[in-house]
């Protein structure tokens, strides 16, 4: 063994030439450069994707970077890899690196304008990327939207489980409240429907009222959160976790037993208002507000309550109010996510807001990292992606995802990027 150590270290030295050098040369690329690189890649795919797929004997443009395809037909691995290299990796790397000079200058210029303008420019580019990328197939579009909804949901649970450190299991319940409340609102007002009869307002007005429907969903969830928030004044830890779990089941059973909203058969026929721009805007606003909150001293009070409640109290922090705010705020965004979800899948049943969804959202938040906005985004995107990619494996998916989770917990007990603030200025800044 001892003789092998110098050997491996020399071989590492030799390889230090290529990959790390690429890494170093890409380190100077600012966020703006990456976005432009990705935009070029998705445009290339949009233009020549079909032709290239035919040339590489792929049945069609691979939806999720060829991964799902490879799991179904392993023999297509070389073609899929080549496709990803030619369409994504090479163009992104090349464009990002070659444009680094002027994107850095642009980033410096953007540092001088008000931060919101710079953020809007980047968000606009990101939206353009998503828009072009999701043009390829409806499947991609839905995956992208569901991932963004998952980001909202994960962020909202991170407020409670991460920032305030209460293990809350009630999130599917909050989401169900949001989904149902917003659905009732839209079906009642804008849709001819078997449950509520004729529409009260013309459907063309509907999309303008969608934000109101979402806020109503969020508000319903926030009110429901009181059921968990009030016991949290007196009890913490395992006991509160049980209460929150009970809350989830209460919501599920209650909905199952209320016939006017469809009972166990659920509620369908919601208008398809969760369009890509709507969900994207919702996610951006959600990230913005939650990030604002957790970085303020008011938001840090959540951390103080988590780490030591008695000390928080002695340092003038109103702990009851803090807990109440955390639960209601987290639930509000879960409700909004539920509203988006209902208007995307357009059929909600109480069964879909059960233990399985709880497992998924907990996996996302603990995988990504507690107490971290970046971690929530990473967790939601990666777990949703993995779960989508592994779909061809059917049941084995539920062996592999938990295994990944266990490995993460062993090597990074608080998740991939825990305790990391989301510093917009640093992310968007120039790299020189």
């Amino acid at each position, binding site marked *: 063994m001892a003789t092998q150590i110098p050997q491996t270290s020399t071989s590492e030295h030799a390889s230090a030439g290529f990959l790390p050098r690429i890494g170093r040369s890409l380190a100077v690329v600012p966020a703006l450069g990456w976005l432009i690189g990705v935009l070029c890649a998705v445009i290339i795919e949009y233009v020549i994707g079909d032709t290239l797929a035919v040339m590489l004997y792929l049945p069609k443009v691979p939806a999720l970077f060829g991964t799902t395809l490879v799991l179904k037909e392993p023999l297509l691995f070389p073609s899929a890899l080549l496709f990803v290299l030619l369409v994504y990796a090479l163009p992104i790397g090349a464009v990002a690196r070659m444009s680094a000079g002027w994107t850095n200058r642009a980033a410096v210029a953007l540092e001088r304008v008000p931060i919101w303008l710079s953020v809007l420019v980047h968000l606009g580019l990101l939206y353009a990327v998503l828009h072009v990328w999701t043009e390829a197939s409806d499947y991609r579009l839905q995956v992208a939207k569901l991932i963004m909804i998952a980001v909202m949901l994960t962020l909202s649970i991170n407020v409670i489980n991460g920032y305030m450190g209460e293990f809350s299991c009630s999130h599917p319940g909050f989401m169900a409240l949001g989904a149902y409340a917003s659905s009732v609102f839209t079906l009642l007002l804008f849709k001819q429907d078997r449950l509520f009869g004729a529409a009260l307002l013309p459907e063309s007005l509907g999309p303008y009222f969608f934000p109101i429907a979402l806020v109503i969903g969020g508000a319903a969830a926030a009110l429901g959160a009181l059921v968990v928030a009030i016991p949290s004044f007196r009890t913490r830890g395992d006991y509160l976790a049980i209460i929150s779990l009970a809350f989830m089941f209460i919501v599920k059973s209650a909905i199952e037993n209320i016939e006017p909203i469809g009972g166990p058969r659920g509620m369908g026929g919601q208008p398809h208002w969760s369009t890509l721009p709507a969900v994207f805007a919702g996610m951006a606003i959600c990230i913005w507000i939650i990030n604002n909150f957790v970085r303020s001293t008011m938001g840090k009070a959540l951390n103080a309550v*988590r*780490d030591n409640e008695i000390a928080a109290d*002695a*340092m*003038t922090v*109103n702990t009851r109010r803090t807990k109440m705010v955390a639960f209601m705020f987290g639930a509000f965004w879960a409700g909004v996510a539920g509203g988006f979800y209902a208007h995307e899948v357009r059929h909600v049943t109480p069964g879909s807001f059960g233990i399985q969804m709880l497992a998924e959202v907990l996996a996302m938040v603990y995988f990504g990292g507690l107490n971290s906005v970046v971690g929530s985004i990473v967790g939601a995107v990666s777990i949703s992606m993995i779960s989508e990619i592994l779909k061809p494996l059917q049941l084995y998916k539920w062996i592999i995802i938990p295994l990944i989770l266990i490995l993460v917990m062993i090597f990074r007990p608080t998740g991939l990027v825990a305790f990391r603030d989301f510093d917009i200025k640093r992310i968007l800044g120039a790299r020189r």
Partner: protein
Amino acid sequence: MNTSAVHNPPLLQVIEMTHFFGGLRAVHDYNLTLMPGQIRGLIGPNGAGKTTIFNLITGIHTPTRGRIELEGRNLVGLRPHQIAASGLGRTFQNMLLWRHMTVLEHVRLAHYAQLKYGLAGAFFGSRLRYAEEQRVADNSMRLLETFDVARFADQIVTNLPYGVQRRVEMARAMATEPKVLFLDEPTAGMTPEELVQMIGIIRKIHEEFKVAILLIEHRLKFVMELCERIQTLVFGEVIAEGTPEEIKNNPDVIEAYLGKEEVA
């Protein structure tokens, strides 16, 4: 009797405070009159109820009986954060720092009751919020400099040496702008050198911030050095009260504190 007590109203007054934990009488008829700018000590063997007295006055427990008044305003029944905000700061025997937060965040958070921007300000990042956060940050840095810990501002507290943590905790308590400061064994676990430093720090707090201080302490030398008057607590009852000299020579105190001579 202290003559100034007759003319000036006391800052903090505790009258016949009694507390039971179930059937156990933890504190019995405790009285305290703390004048502005005074430093007083509370000594006694382990389990005498010293920390319980702190917890009762700061609202962690509600006394079974008795009155507590800060500048004439009743404190009994208020929640701990209200008591803290009304001008009663404290430190803890085992420090109770927030283990995932940086030094600066500790001190900033102790300004919580002084923030006026409200939830909407926190959510949407109002101009008032940034102005207030800036003021709080500046004030926090000043406090950290006062306690000579400014160079640790961005470090997580749990990574710091013990003496530094103690000073951070004091800076945090001072950020609540207390009129009365309760120090619960500020020298626990300290070396003799750190102890001398701590005496200096407490003197400095006393002079710069003009606070009255009530001190729980085990080390008699420390209490004798700092306090004008000392109470000795045994089994929840004050058995002796007086100047350091009087306490040092009081036979009851010696017995309670050191045991009887024959036994020793």
